[in-house]
């Protein structure tokens, strides 16, 4: 992993929190089922299959069918957690997600595993960096991007009790457990993890701990950076965005495409309601061959890149 994760803090693969939570829910709620595309291993659902053999549905390598079957299971009163590599789950089954899940308002929970550039060297087909832009464009689709094991568990629980389709974007890239004062997770609400009044850094998923590191570096320079964890991209927390804009400058950072994702959602709000100088950090497009950590560093998605974007945007502040 990149320099940003080399510290003494223990690191966690959030897939573990995901499967643990789905198993816990399944014990008390027999409507919970898992649907996979030959991805029992990569989704870490082997133990779920052992415990609930009838409730693990493996359709084979067939993502369109997988999402359609998920919608059918929801029709039958189940709460399906449809899990596969997020690149195939979203790109391949997009029309099933749009028509069968969102437009039909089916109670399907789509779990995109190994999102972002976790698959590094496997290349752009296996990177899932367009998913946030695609999913948040769909009416009625809730989009969650948890940042650590605790938030992953909360997101899965919130998705299970939410009536309607939810996309939960999970990573396999190890992340530290974040320190927070609040113990409440709510769909549609962001949280402030670090106070500051000069600039707001809005991040989610694997970028949150990097944003916190950037804020610590900026603090040493006398710059107050507020770090906001925006775990729900859709519907976005407009109150928190209005507060963020009041700092006078915003940087967004996500492990995804620069166009149309979290940055796009923030920019849409700011353009209409609170124009401020912004920098949007993300990937520019199809990426060259390289490991996940190399790609993150190469494209400035690390603490140094975030801090320098904050300095730039501060210069432009009114």
């Amino acid at each position: 992993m990149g320099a940003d994760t080399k510290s003494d803090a223990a690191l966690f693969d959030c897939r573990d929190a995901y499967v643990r939570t789905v198993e816990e829910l399944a014990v008390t709620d027999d409507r919970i089922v898992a649907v996979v595309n030959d991805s029992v291993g990569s989704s870490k659902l082997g133990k779920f299959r052992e415990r609930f053999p009838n409730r693990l549905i493996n359709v084979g390598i067939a993502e369109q069918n997988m999402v359609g079957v998920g919608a059918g299971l929801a029709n039958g009163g189940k709460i399906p957690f449809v899990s596969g590599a997020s690149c195939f789950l979203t790109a391949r089954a997009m029309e099933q997600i749009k028509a069968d899940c969102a437009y039909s308002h089916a109670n399907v929970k789509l779990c995109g595993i190994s999102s972002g550039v976790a698959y590094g060297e496997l290349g752009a087909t296996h990177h899932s960096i367009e998913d946030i832009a695609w999913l948040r464009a769909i009416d009625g689709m809730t989009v969650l991007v948890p940042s650590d094991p605790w938030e992953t568990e909360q997101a899965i629980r919130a998705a299970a009790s939410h009536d309607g389709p939810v996309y939960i974007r999970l990573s396999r890239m190890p992340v530290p457990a974040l320190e927070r004062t609040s113990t409440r997770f709510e769909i549609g609400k962001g949280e402030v993890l670090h106070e500051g009044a000069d600039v707001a850094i809005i991040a989610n998923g694997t970028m949150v701990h990097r944003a916190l590191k950037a804020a610590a570096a900026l603090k040493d320079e006398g710059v107050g950076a507020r770090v906001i964890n925006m775990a729900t991209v859709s519907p976005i927390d407009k109150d928190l965005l209005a507060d963020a804009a009041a700092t006078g400058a915003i940087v967004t950072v996500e492990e995804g495409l620069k166009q149309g994702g979290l940055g796009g959602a923030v920019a849409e709000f700011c353009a209409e309601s609170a124009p401020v100088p912004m920098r949007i950090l993300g990937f520019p497009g199809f990426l060259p061959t390289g490991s996940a950590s190399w790609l993150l560093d190469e494209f400035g998605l690390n603490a140094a890149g975030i801090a320098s974007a904050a300095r730039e945007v501060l210069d432009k502040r009114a």
Partner: protein
Amino acid sequence: MICIMPDSNGTSTGTIEDRAKHVRERANWMRRRLLKMIVDAGQGHPGGDLSATDILATLYFDVLRLDPANPLAPDRDRFVMSKGHCTGALYTAMAGRGLFPEAELASYLKPKSRLNGHPNRTYLPGVETNTGPLGHGFPVGVGIAVSGQIDDADFRTFVLTGDGELQEGSMWEAAMFAGHRGLGKLTVIVDRNRLQQGANTEDTNGLEPLGDKWRAFGWEVVGVNGHDHAELLSAFDAAAQPRDKPRVIIADTCKGKGVSFMENQAGWHHGVPNPEQYAQALAELEAEIA
């Protein structure tokens, strides 16, 4: 020394036994070379690489009409790697045929390498379309063959698919259309190793009776031992005869072929041999051609 390519990159001539020997030596080299790539890169898909090696060797070192100096010549035979995760096998075959320098294999998966984990035509001439998500190469291959049909061109189109890959609906949409169009210059090879990523195909979403399915879609069906070079050559030769139906060669294969501890093990779908395992694999492969 073990990774030196047997000399002569060109395609073979002579009796079917001579041709099979030529292919066999190169297939053995491919196996040793691709394992080194996986070990050096620290990741890869050895199971599917090794099950496809003999098919790719037969195509690249005998069957395919192509000019390494002019890889985009309009009359080239087209090969589409629909099971795009098996780049160890594909890249060694392409380098062995002279499409890029053998030394470049050392860059596999390194930052900015042309040898991405899945093949990319914008990096590497000779790759016809970017694959990786399963179920994509075959429809593109059908489009290539339709283009040839419109132009009455004489190039042939070959598509290699995984068997698990046949669970994708797009494969059957393509099969139906190719049958409908009577694409006689299209040959699909199914790498029938009976394993997908996590388990046996028949325990996951069964494919049998596989030959009947293709026949019902308007295809000629041939079964071969996918590790017997003479059988593969005969099937490709026969497929070259004029006809008005597409042909599918269902190649009975073994995932991990040639390395005893990898054979028929779903766990070696992806993975990296440790130093002892690597040494054992090389010893087994060297014994095979000794």
